[in-house]
């Protein structure tokens, strides 16, 4: 942005006059910073892949550990064609969904209750505080001991991870709702159930949604961890099995698929959030 600045002859009694003219170059329609930002966001991943390919071909990168993207694409196509990738992805997604659902709903109800009822909060807070910091991966052996090696142990470990994330955000979200909204509910004679439904839940929803995001991230992490240890299918199994057979390309296919699932699910969560929280002012 340039300001056209000039000086004109000063009238009597003045030392100088500064003149500034408006200019349409102040807002350039095409080559502004935001356009450049968008271009960079779209091209940078491709640039990285191209660089990778180049470095492997130039033998700078060891192809045994970092196979060229072009050879991974081939393996990708094979695994898709054989239906193997779809099978593993489907199994993993189903586990993540079950685990998430089992953990989410109890956490939501308990979290709202903790947020609204000081006595429930007082009783639950030390228990949650003491158990939350335990890394969930550390209790995986115990979970497998209790639930066996089948699907239930995967659901259980994911559910536990999701439960804590959603519980903590929900309780904090409800407890931090402006008191006035609860007073409004009371002055209009809302029943306890209606206070939950019309005040506590929508009021805490933005914070609950942050918990859902974190919870889904934890679900994906625990999913892969559980599948690495004891599974005969799923993306975690695909990655682990590739290590055991030294099929590095297949391992990358597993990694890329997990990354892709993560990316797509967060985009979907963004869309869901804008549907569920239409009252949230959004940046354009």
């Amino acid at each position: 942005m340039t300001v056209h600045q000039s000086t004109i002859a000063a009238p009597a009694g003045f030392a100088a006059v500064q003149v500034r003219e408006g200019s349409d170059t102040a807002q350039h329609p095409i080559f502004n910073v935001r356009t450049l930002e968008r271009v960079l966001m779209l091209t940078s991943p491709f640039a990285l892949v191209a660089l990778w390919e180049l470095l492997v071909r130039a033998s700078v990168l060891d192809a045994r550990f970092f196979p060229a993207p072009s050879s991974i694409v081939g393996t990708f196509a094979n695994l898709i064609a054989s239906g193997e990738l779809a099978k593993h992805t489907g199994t993993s997604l189903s586990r993540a969904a079950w685990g998430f659902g089992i953990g989410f709903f109890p956490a939501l109800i308990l979290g709202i209750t903790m947020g609204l009822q000081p006595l429930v909060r007082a009783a639950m807070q030390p228990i949650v505080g003491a158990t939350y910091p335990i890394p969930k991966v550390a209790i995986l052996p115990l979970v497998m001991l209790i639930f066996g090696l089948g699907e239930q142990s995967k659901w259980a470990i994911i559910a536990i991870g999701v439960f804590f994330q959603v519980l903590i955000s929900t309780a904090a979200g409800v407890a931090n709702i402006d008191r006035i909204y609860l007073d409004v509910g009371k002055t209009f004679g809302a029943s306890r159930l209606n206070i939950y439904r019309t005040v506590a839940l929508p009021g805490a929803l933005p914070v609950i949604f942050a918990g859902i995001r974190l919870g889904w991230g934890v679900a994906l992490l625990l999913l892969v961890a559980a599948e690495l240890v004891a599974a005969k299918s799923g993306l975690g199994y695909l990655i682990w099995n590739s290590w055991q057979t030294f099929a590095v390309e297949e391992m990358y296919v597993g990694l890329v698929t997990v990354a892709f699932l993560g990316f797509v699910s967060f985009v979907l969560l963004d869309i869901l959030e804008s549907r569920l929280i239409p009252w949230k002012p959004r940046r354009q």
Partner: protein
Amino acid sequence: MQQVEAATTVLNQPDGAVTIRISKLERVFQTRQDSVQALRDLNLTIGRGEFCCIVGPSGCGKTTLLRILAGLDTHTSGRLELYQHDTSKPLTGMVFQEQSVFPWMTVRDNIAYGLCMRGVARPIWEPIVDYYIDRVGLRKFADAYPFQLSGGMKQRVSVARAFANDPEVLLMDEPFANLDEQNRILLQEELLRIWEESRKTVVFITHSIDEALVLGDRVVVMTAHPGTVKAERSIDFPRPRDVYELKASPAFGEMAFDVWSQLRDEVLKSKEEEVQ
């Protein structure tokens, strides 16, 4: 100016019926170290259909009194009688000072809130809500969310929400205090117009003498903390009132000076307390 004695106050009321009788009301807040008396020996009777404005210095317990009337707080001693003329209607409704419109509901759903909570069916509440949406001039914003509204529009929603629920007594806690001067006058005029239609009993708290005189049938002056009734005045300006015209009249100025002379010492006292 008469000194108020217990519940034997002469009332400025249209049909002589009493709606609220407050006798010897006290509210003490217990903290760990000591206790703070917010309200002391408060006596006040408010007639049916009366627009009663309460002015007092900040921290005098006005809001505490209103919260007790709304059932959001309880008094520690004394007696509160609320007379209900129609048990099918809610007893009280409240308009708050701060932003209290639900951000997660549209204007329409906000105004319908009380009716929905009472289990009124949609075909019945819809025309009522539409009426009040028009009444406060928000037709174009009926399906907008509060973040799309200005401060004045949000307070209009809050007022409409209280009126639509049709309570016996309307409690208003400095509802226009956070608005700019021009918006405040517009909202005062709108409130007067809506109120004229139903002539509900209103308890209106404000720190503005002008606002009390423009709106009320009576102004009650409260003492500095601990709050009790210091003095009261009937306001006999004819209705319907034009806010600006009324404010320009000499009688209004005299009245405002009179009320201020009662309030002045209390404001000074509350200032002294703040310094300590």
